[in-house]
């Protein structure tokens, strides 16, 4: 259903592809310059990181913070509650459909990025099956973390009616801590440790690090352990908040 709906607007898809290409070129230039002036990080790593970040972000994104909040504020959330299956399943379907579509649309830019990277010796990812498998597992965990964080935030709409600022504030925090703005290799000491302890890294930077393969085995194990603990914590938190929030839900429909 989602695909059919989205495919009505082909122009929008082309525009998204162009926007992705502009973004990827911009990010590569900015971090390449940084790698050039600092000389502390391999330029190839930066370019590969950003090309992969764009791909992984399409796979681990969660849109519940947008449509979930809208459903609560408009009162449509009641329809989901009346259905014979858990509303999370439908939300999951919307997210997976949306992400699959976005990945498909991003592929031309992704391939272009790899070709440019390879031609300039800036693509450093090896086609290692083990790294790819680990990366894919990382993506699944990352997506689920994003999904539960998104659902927890969207439940806030039951109490707070003006959610725009909170939503944008959340996006800013998540983008900063996930490694979208700053690759983790540029950080050190306490800041790097904090980034590793919070859940956001596992929604973006960690799967990319796994794909690139320049991560130690100890770091991989520790990363997965932290990610799974976060997934469990977020699921329990979601359950508790949902139980309390649903008692206050009034389906007013603003």
């Amino acid at each position, binding site marked *: 259903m989602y695909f059919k709906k989205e495919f*009505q*607007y082909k*122009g*929008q*898809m*082309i*525009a*998204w592809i*162009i*926007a992705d290409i*502009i*973004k990827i070129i*911009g990010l590569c*230039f*900015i*971090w390449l*310059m*940084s790698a050039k*002036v*600092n000389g*502390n990080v391999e330029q190839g790593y930066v370019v590969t990181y950003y090309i992969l970040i764009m791909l992984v972000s399409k796979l681990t994104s969660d849109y519940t913070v947008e449509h979930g909040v809208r459903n609560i504020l408009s009162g449509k959330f009641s329809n989901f509650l009346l259905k014979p299956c858990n509303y999370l399943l439908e939300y999951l379907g919307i997210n997976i459909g949306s992400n699959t579509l976005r990945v498909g649309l991003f592929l031309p830019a992704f391939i272009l990025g790899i070709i440019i990277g390879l031609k300039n010796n800036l693509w450093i990812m090896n086609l290692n099956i083990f790294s790819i498998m680990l990366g894919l597992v990382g993506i699944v965990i990352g997506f689920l973390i994003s999904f539960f964080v998104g659902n927890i935030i969207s439940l806030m709409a039951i109490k*707070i*009616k*003006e959610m*725009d*600022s*909170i939503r*944008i*504030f959340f996006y*800013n*925090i998540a983008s*900063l801590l996930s490694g979208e*703005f*700053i690759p983790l290799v*540029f*950080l050190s000491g306490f800041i790097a440790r904090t980034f590793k302890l919070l859940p956001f890294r596992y929604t973006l930077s960690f799967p990319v690090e796994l794909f690139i393969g320049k991560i130690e085995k100890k770091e991989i194990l520790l990363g997965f352990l932290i990610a799974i603990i976060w997934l469990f914590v977020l699921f329990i938190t979601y359950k508790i908040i949902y139980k309390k929030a649903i008692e206050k839900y009034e389906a007013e429909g603003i």
Partner: protein
Amino acid sequence: MKQKESKKHSKKTFCYYFRVWKQVVKGGIKRSYLYKTDIFVRFLRTLLVVGIQIALLNVLFGKSEMYAGWSRSQTYLVIGIWNVLNYIGWSLFSTNLLYLESKVIEGKFDYILLKPLSSSFYASFSDFFITNFITAISGFILIFYYIIAEWGSISFLNVLVGIVAICVALLIWYAIYLFFASFTISNPRNGILSIAKELLGLTKYPIDVFGSSLSVVFYTAIPIAFLTTVPANIMIGRFSYGFVLVGLVIGIILLVISKLVWNMNVKRYSSASS
């Protein structure tokens, strides 16, 4: 005589439009009393935006003193100007133009066309979003940081002309947004504003980052260098004041083109309600 009349008329029109916009701003401010949490979160976000950008620049610079020929405080200035343009843009027109799509789909654009105002004006300035205006403070903080950091070497005149250049940049920003948004009227859900967003996002950093060949493109064919790099260079004292005039001419040309494209798309508009 005719010329005098036309001047008088345009003055009246300008005053009329200004009065309409003043009411819109008043409405926007009044609405902010309703959503106090929103305002509070916006203030927090302003601090977060500044924090993120400073952290990001520190990482970009690393141990180096210069980045693409720009010092740390000069880069703060560029990002500050970008924040001012971006968030003031969101509070004045960008959000309205973003909502244009839903208005066209729901058939509400008919009401815009029926108003005794220019449709592009009303579609762009029909609401004022004070929350975005608050986030623009992050830009002023970074610009003030530059002024304080370079207090000894800064020229007051350069700062004043730089402010004029920022106003010109806002005009160019608006023209670019209006150009891209106008296609929504004849073809809604085209996603074209996402291109504008990414294109304008490139100006968050000095244009010199993109190398000499792309820089030429950004000064000529796609003149986004006039948004942040040129005003910053004028404030620093690297560029002559003539660049403001060039920017103004570019802004006016872009605005005229945007208006023509807008009118062209209005002609192709078919109301959803008909």
